[in-house]
């Protein structure tokens, strides 16, 4: 037990070290990320269940968001009548302007009851055999987190997708159409195929957002440090555990464990973002960056 770290004279120095994650890394090492026990009272810290929760909720969100976001982008850039384009892109961007905490509030009082009453019983009946939709339908849990995350990352994925689709030269479209293709064939062969690296980049950028998203997830995921196969079960993410426990973490080891979780989150999002940025650049290179339509 490190003691109350703000009271001793040299405490400042000690907690600075703690914040850098130093004592923690020395003592716990890589095992930190492969142990599941999270028991602050007995100073047992393992982050595996948070890593699991973060990855599963984010992948679930991507699974839902990517098809929808690409659909929206295709509709806005290739199908919608001219007069509808600006209002549509403005409204989808409005989704990005809603603060995370308001999504969380909405999710608690609208989305979660909806999942509990209608969606989860339905999933359990028809897809229960997969084991992914087993157990009591609380509403709150991994599924709710995935859905709210999906809603939150759709705007970023669809705006990147729109950007890279606009970057595809008009001649490509005309060439495919001239060969007698229908509109969908033109989109598939002329546009999507040329833009796929950028779309992948958009998806990865969305993944980066989902990994670090905090408030809305914290409010609906259930905050239980467990690993369960069922998506109905409550979970915990790296960002949520920091949000919930950081301000009340007593003891250097507790605090630095949380900072270590934050450091891991930071490094992962950097890698993910760099990757995404490079992919998007590979498509839009040579085209002016201005495309906030």
């Amino acid at each position, binding site marked *: 037990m490190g003691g109350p770290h703000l009271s001793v004279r040299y405490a400042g120095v000690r907690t600075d070290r703690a914040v850098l994650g130093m004592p923690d890394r020395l003592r716990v090492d890589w095992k930190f990320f492969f142990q599941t026990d999270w028991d602050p009272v007995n100073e047992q810290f393992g982050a595996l269940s948070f890593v699991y929760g973060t990855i599963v909720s984010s992948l679930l969100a991507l699974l839902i968001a990517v098809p929808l976001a690409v659909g929206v982008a295709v509709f806005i850039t290739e199908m919608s009548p001219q007069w509808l384009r600006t209002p549509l892109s403005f409204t989808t961007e409005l989704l990005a302007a809603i603060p995370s905490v308001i999504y969380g509030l909405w999710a608690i009082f609208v989305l979660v009851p909806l999942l509990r009453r209608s969606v989860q019983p339905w999933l359990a009946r028809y897809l229960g055999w997969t084991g992914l939709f087993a157990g009591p339908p609380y509403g709150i849990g991994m599924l709710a987190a995935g859905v709210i995350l999906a809603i939150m990352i759709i705007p970023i994925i669809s705006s990147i997708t729109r950007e890279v689709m606009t970057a595809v030269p008009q001649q490509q479209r005309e060439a495919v159409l001239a060969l007698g293709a229908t509109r969908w064939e033109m989109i598939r062969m002329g546009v999507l195929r040329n833009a796929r690296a950028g779309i992948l980049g958009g998806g990865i950028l969305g993944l980066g957002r989902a990994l670090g998203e905090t408030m809305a997830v914290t409010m609906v995921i259930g905050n239980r440090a467990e690993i369960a196969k069922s998506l109905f079960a409550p979970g915990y993410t790296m960002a949520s555990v920091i949000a919930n426990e*950081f301000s009340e973490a007593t003891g250097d080891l507790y605090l630095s464990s949380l900072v270590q979780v934050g450091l891991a989150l930071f490094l992962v999002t950097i890698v993910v973002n760099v990757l995404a940025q490079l992919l998007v650049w590979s498509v839009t290179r040579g085209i002016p960056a201005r495309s906030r339509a």
Partner: protein
Amino acid sequence: MATQADRADLRVSLRRRGIDLLSTLAAGGAVVLVLLPLCAVFGYLIYSGIGSLNWAFLTQTPKPVGEAGGGMANAIAGSVLILLIASILGVPVGIGAGIYLAEYARGRFGDIIRFTADILNGVPSIVIGIVAYGIVVLRQRHFSALAGGVALAIMMVPTITRATEEMLLLVPTTVREAAYGLGVSRWRTTLSITLRTATSGVITGVMLAFARIAGETAPLLFTAFGNTYWNWNVNQPTAALPLQIFVYAISPFDEWHRQAWAGALVLIVLIVISVSAVRIAAGRGMLKGTS
């Protein structure tokens, strides 16, 4: 024979047309599915928010659990205080970096800064909260509005930097050359000619950044921390609207839930107003920038 081939042709083309139609329906369906939550969020906000919004909410501090009434006046004021600190710290740095990138940066170093800004933009807000905790809270040894402001300022910088750079690059080189031709020094040209021409665009960027941080909650949890009373001291823990919404939303009390909705409505109205203002300013900015 010809008719058979014709029929085969027709079948193929019918199938292709069918797929074309299906794809249109699917894309349209995706739009509807995406707009649905947007409408639902706004609908519930207005429906539940207006019902609980009253004068007391905007003028009083929170009442203890169990007592009806009370409001979030101190949280609104706290948000204003934190956002003010964030703007004072973040805006000059952001604009300065943008000017550097557009006017002075040559070659690799500029690219590195640009890349860093883009990466910083993607860093989770909760991580930035930890950084602010490390550089302000640990030093002061208590939570404070200043720490919250520093966290939000860090989040503002990349957005403002990139927007400023973009806007300055829109100003034609001829305008700069005209100034140089009149013997105006470089820094003077940058400040009084280039930056001034791009003013509305730069303001657009600043407001976008502002709208983005106004609803941020995660980095405030362990920097500004929250407070049930009035506070105007930058060195003391401060309430903030998003924090208050979070605390009330996860509480088990109906009265607090109602207030959370009202707070959310106030917050979103503030943000939507600034985003719409951005749109209008952007429309004008374009005209001015290219003239």
